[in-house]
């Protein structure tokens, strides 16, 4: 029962990935990221089945961080950087979407090559995490604005987090928190740098950051 | 003791006979030109006169200028002790004496040329340059000849090497090789002794001379030494050549010495004939002649391998 619900959410995440690649507006991108964060926050409870302190705390922390705090920081960065709200992809949106779709298919195929533990059988976690990681990569490599790359990094982390769900028992609580914390600090530092970039270059277009060569 | 006797004769021949060869050459040339020519013993007279004369030294010169002729004459005479005359053994014969022979000549060349440069005269510089340049090619021919002879005789000393042809043990290819070597040695002789077609000893245009121009500034005894040394050199090379020209012996010492003396004179005549028959090569073409000589010997070497 739970597992199917989990699968449902995972499919939702896959769709969100396609949306990331498809949308042309940064604000929407941030919204979607926040939504994905919330979904991820719910996942542990569903997969873990029962609610205990660890999972509960992790869930809450996830929802708070990924769902509100980090998107908030990104929004602030976006606000103070007086820039066009367009994504400005280096290659068109449609090709990236197609790439993303292809990536999803491949990750499903790839995941099917990896034997799962009995309790995780017929669970879409692995393909979902792969395709999310891939989506993050695509955002990082095909989008030109610093802030969109930050979002890409966030999505990448989400993908890894999804896989982490399989290890709730194995991975001790402390580590999970450490990971979350690192992610948070990472995004925090990133947004600081974004702030400086904006101040120095009066833009977040990383195409200007190409003076260091060879 | 026969050995002592041979040595003494050897030395006397080497010391006394050289100027005569020059005389013969000049006589031959004169006759073929229909002239009377200088007397046969002219060079002896010249030498006596020169040794009696005073020296004139250029202020530019150093000790090298004086040492040059002395060293070269000494070197050539010492080399003469290594060369077998006719059917007789050389006073000194040992493995590797052929190298010493050639290198003593080289020593002589070094100091003759240096002495020439010592005067700071352009002409003598020219002469020295030509001398050392052509010698470097003549040297190749000479050593190629040695290689063939060592190969044939299986010995590393001039005496047995050069006596090998006399044994008459060679037929077919080896004999041909010997013939080639003989021709090559004749060319070397002409080159080493600055004769036509390589050089014209009595041209009167310094620009074209080689050996003569090197000694323009030498005078008196020094000049005498130079002329004498040149003559001795001619005799030595003729002696080498004779082993190919007259490769036989009577086995009777007196006859053999006579044969040798006649042979030397014959060589002189031959040189004279060549000089009157041929014109001087232009300097450009001298190298090719010498290279040709080396190539002949190379052929000889390959004959011996076969």
């Amino acid at each position, binding site marked *: 029962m739970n597992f199917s619900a989990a699968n449902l959410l995972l499919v939702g995440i896959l769709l969100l990935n396609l949306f990331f690649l498809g949308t042309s507006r940064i604000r929407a991108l941030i919204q979607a990221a926040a939504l994905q964060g919330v979904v991820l926050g719910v996942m542990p409870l569903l997969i873990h089945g029962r609610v205990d302190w660890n999972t509960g705390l992790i869930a809450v922390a996830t929802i708070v961080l990924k769902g509100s705090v980090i998107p908030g920081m990104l929004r602030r960065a976006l606000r103070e950087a007086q820039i066009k709200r367009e994504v400005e992809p*280096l290659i068109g949106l449609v090709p990236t979407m197609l790439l993303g779709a292809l990536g999803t298919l491949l990750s499903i195929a*790839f995941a*099917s*090559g990896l034997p799962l533990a009995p309790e995780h059988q017929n669970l879409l976690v692995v393909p979902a995490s792969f395709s999310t990681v891939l989506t993050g990569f695509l955002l*990082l490599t095909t989008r*030109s604005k610093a802030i969109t790359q930050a979002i890409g990094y966030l999505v990448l982390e989400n993908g890894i987090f999804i896989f982490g769900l399989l290890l709730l028992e194995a991975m001790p609580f402390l580590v999970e928190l450490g990971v979350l914390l690192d992610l948070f600090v990472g995004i925090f530092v990133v947004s600081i740098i974004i702030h400086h970039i904006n101040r120095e270059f009066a833009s977040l277009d*990383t195409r200007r*950051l*190409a003076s260091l*060569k060879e | 003791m026969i050995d002592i006797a041979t040595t003494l004769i050897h030395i006397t021949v080497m010391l006394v006979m050289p100027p005569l060869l020059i005389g013969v050459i000049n006589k031959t040339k004169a006759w073929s030109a229909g002239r009377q020519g200088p007397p046969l013993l002219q060079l002896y007279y010249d030498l006596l006169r020169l040794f009696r004369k005073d*020296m004139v*030294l*250029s*202020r*530019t*010169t*150093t000790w*090298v200028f004086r040492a040059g002729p*002395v*060293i070269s*004459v*000494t*070197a050539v005479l*010492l080399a003469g002790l290594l060369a077998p005359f006719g059917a007789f053994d050389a006073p*000194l014969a*040992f493995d*590797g*004496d052929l*190298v*010493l022979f*050639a*290198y*003593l000549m*080289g*020593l002589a060349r070094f100091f003759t*040329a*240096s002495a020439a*440069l*010592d*005067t*700071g*005269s*352009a*002409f003598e*510089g020219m002469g*020295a*340059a030509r001398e050392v*340049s052509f*010698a*470097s090619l003549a040297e*190749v021919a000479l*050593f*190629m000849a040695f290689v063939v002879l060592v*190969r044939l*005789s*299986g010995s*590393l000393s001039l005496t047995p090497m050069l006596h090998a042809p006399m044994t008459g043990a060679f037929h077919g290819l080896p004999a041909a090789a010997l013939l080639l070597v003989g021709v090559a040695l004749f060319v070397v002789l002409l080159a080493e002794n600055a004769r036509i077609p390589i050089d014209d000893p009595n041209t009167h245009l310094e620009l074209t001379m080689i050996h003569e121009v090197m000694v*323009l500034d030498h005078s008196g005894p020094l000049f005498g030494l130079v002329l004498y040394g040149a003559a001795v050199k001619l005799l030595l090379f003729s002696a080498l050549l004779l082993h190919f020209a007259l490769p036989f012996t009577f086995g009777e010492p007196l006859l053999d010495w006579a044969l040798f003396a006649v042979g030397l004179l014959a060589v002189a005549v031959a040189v004279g004939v060549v000089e009157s028959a041929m014109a001087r090569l232009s300097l450009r073409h001298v190298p090719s002649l010498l290279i040709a000589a080396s190539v002949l010997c190379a052929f000889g*070497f390959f004959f011996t*391998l076969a």
Partner: protein
Amino acid sequence: MTPTIWLDLSVAAIVLTASSGVPGLALGRRSGAAQGLASLLVIVGSLLGALAAVAVLAGAAIETRTLPGPLPELSLHLRLDPLAAFFLVPVYLLGVAGTLYGTRYWKQAEHPENGRGLRLCYGMLIAALAGVVLAADGFAFLMAWELMALSAFFLVTTEDDRAEVQQAGWVYLVAAHAGTLALFALFALLWAVSGTLEFRPMTSSAGTQGATSVLFLLALLGFGLKAGIVPLHFWLPAAHADAPSHVSALLSGVLLKMGIYGLLRIFMLLPAPPPGVGMLMIGIGTVSAVYGVVFALGQHDLKRLLAYHSIENIGIIVMGLGLALIGVSAQQPAWVALGLAGCLLHVWNHALFKALLFLAAGSVIHSAGTREIDRLGGLGKPMARTAALFAIGAVAICGLPPLNGFASELLIYVGLFRVNADGASRLWSAAPLAAPLLAMAGALAVACFVKAYGTVFLGPHRSESAARAHEAPSSMLLAMLLLALPCVAIGLLPALAMPALDRVVLDWIRLDSPPPALSELVPWMPIMGMNAALVGSVLAVLLILRSRSRRRVPAQTVTWDCGYVRPTATMAYTASSFAQLLVGLYGWLLRSRSRDATRTELFPPRQHFHTNVPEQVMDLVLAPLWVSFRRALAPLRALQHGRVQHYLMYVLLTLCTLLALLFPIDELLRRFLGW
């Protein structure tokens, strides 16, 4: 005495020489005391080391010692055997001579900036050279080898404020490093094949045949680069010409020989080579000999000329080595003995007369202030002693009797002719053809040194600076004398050197039958007699002339020169014109570039004619190769073009590729369809 003292002495010598320059660093930039101290240390150390070497050559027992290295696997083994001792002798002799020379030639007071560094590296170099020959395992050898290369580099670049010196040093450094890397491979492979880093003769088992040839090629590359055999000589002329003269003496006198030493040492370890190897070495040697002397003829720079002659002499040495190898493969002890002895004796001789010539050239430069042969001239009068010493070196290097060059070349000639005499028609019966070429090299050397000596020391002064020249100070003359005397001694009495050679040969050779003593192979008695006669009679005649001219004083006048009343220096024959004939003859090889402004108008103004001979391998091969290599790299450099997106793409692609490799594609499709 205990039989272990000699190696200790050598180690002490290494320590003393290596540390000789250190106290100077503490003392002032202009303090002569530092220089004196350093020189003293070098001399004392060298004397100790030379003592040990001579003792071993005289028959003292071979000693070995193990010093702790960075790791137990890499502990340093030292071995003082006759071969090592033989090479130690010139190292220390030239070390002493060069140091003496340096005290005046490179006065600390005159060179406050680089004097201390120069002395530090000079001592280091002497120590490193000794280390190379004493090393008895691959690691210690490499260590000493590279130290040697580095200190030599610093010595060459002593005057690094001059652009050409920087260039020379750079080319030298690259060549040296390339050689070292080849030796890296050589010793690593040796380790892999023989299972030990120590120098132990390999047992020629089945598997090692292929490895042996690879080892040989690596050795040829690595050591050939150091020895400067053609075509690996490209670094040599510039490096030796642009270093300070007493450094050039050391570099060309002993540093080059380390390449020869390495080859000898390696051939001690490898199993007997096929005859082809020996022939190859003879071929290389002949080519180097002729090439070196021909290029020397084309030079206008006194020191470059000498440097090219080093190539020639290395060629002669390699010919001897090749002869020895043929002997090994043909099981002919006599050939081995003659070839090896010729090779070794020429190592000594070349060290002596080439160092002598470099030092003499240094004195000339020191007093006349130029290296251009055509701007010198007539120095024989103001610098009579230097001129005489140079003459000794010149006659010796031409291999003319009665000096030492003849003795070593005679050994090689006799060896070649012996192959010729008692060789059946086999692969090696072509070897004797090297003899005429060696003779040609000799004759060309005569031409070249008549040119050098005649133009520098004889004739009129060609420039103001030449006219102002003065005799070298006594310490420099003493240093040269130190080298000239052995030249004369070995030349007049070659038999004296034979016992040492016999000992080395006996130790090196690995044949069933022992080699005959050299004195049986070459009759030194008559040769020494001839030498004595030559010297004696020349002196006699000269004395007669002198007494005669005391009685009848010869008239002094100007050079006759076909009637010129007032011959000027410009009328004298220049070195360039002297060599013109031969340079033209070998034009196909030299490709001399001439720049002349031949005018045709009626009253042509002042005109200049200038020729120079480029260093073929460097200018025509390596430099263009490097340029095209860099051009080939250029597109790759575009990979780092500053776009972070693409950087991330690289990561992604790497990841995907590796993962894809994990999953064969058909597998992937099957699963995909199956799913």
